[in-house]
């Protein structure tokens, strides 16, 4: 069973700045759970696109009840791959991110596309999609809610981290740069979630598993 999400946001910076900041966002005050970051592959293609692969290592912050699902123990760390394509001619950055381990508990894949906003000058539009699934029998409600809460919390941290990097590049106050316009995407997400998942209510108070 796969839960699907999508949303979009406007970043009040030019695409060039956003893409540069993309490489410089670690470390930042919101990424203390990210322990290491490495480029493990990079290539400029004949048509001048930049392909990159980054390996990230993050702490595994599971509540105890989730750890008990895996009596033989779980690795303390989560390894994440982030593949990306920068196309400076078409001015798009596409990233694909997924976890290499802990996939039995939860597999989270995310695709992001950064492009010039069609509507506003000096603004970059970010379209995000995510696919979340679990092999734990039944994909039970607590796992779902935990996974969703952490996923959303990580998305917020990621955006704050990007803002932070942008402000370093531009010398701007971070809050001015990000305006999150969720353009009817919450409706889209609700529809998609309903059709793909069993009836699961969105938790009123998402818990922070830090």
């Amino acid at each position: 069973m796969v839960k699907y999400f999508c949303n979009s946001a406007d970043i009040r910076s030019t695409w060039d700045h956003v893409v540069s900041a993309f490489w410089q966002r670690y470390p930042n005050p919101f990424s203390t759970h990210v322990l290491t970051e490495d480029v493990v592959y990079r290539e400029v293609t004949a048509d001048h696109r930049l392909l990159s692969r980054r390996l990230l290592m993050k702490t595994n912050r599971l509540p105890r009840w989730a750890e008990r699902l895996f009596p033989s123990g779980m690795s303390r760390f989560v390894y994440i791959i982030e593949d990306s394509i920068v196309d400076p001619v078409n001015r798009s950055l596409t990233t694909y991110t997924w976890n290499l381990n802990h996939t039995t508990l939860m597999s989270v894949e995310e695709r992001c596309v950064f492009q010039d906003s069609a509507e506003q000058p000096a603004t970059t539009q970010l379209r995000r999609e995510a696919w979340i699934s679990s092999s734990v029998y039944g994909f039970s409600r607590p796992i779902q809610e935990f996974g969703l809460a952490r996923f959303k919390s990580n998305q917020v941290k990621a955006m704050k981290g990007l803002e932070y990097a942008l402000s370093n590049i531009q010398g701007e106050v971070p809050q001015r740069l990000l305006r999150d316009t969720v353009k009817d995407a919450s409706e889209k997400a609700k529809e998609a979630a309903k059709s793909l998942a069993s009836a699961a209510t969105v938790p009123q108070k998402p818990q922070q598993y830090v």
Partner: protein
Amino acid sequence: MNSVGEACTELKREYDQCFNRWFAEKFLKGDRSGDPCTDSFRKYQRCVQKAIRDKDIPIDGVDFMGPSKDKPES
């Protein structure tokens, strides 16, 4: 930011500095005149690939953009 290979962090920083400059000043501006970072990248990669093997991180044979292949463009 630290590298997954403790010994590689300094090499990573050197490479990152070179890359960030090249990326903003050359690559994004369409300047195809060549990559000044190949040397620092090679040194960094030698170190980090060994660390990845030593730590058994399961990164081999993973296709570029792998899982995205079965997902249509939105």
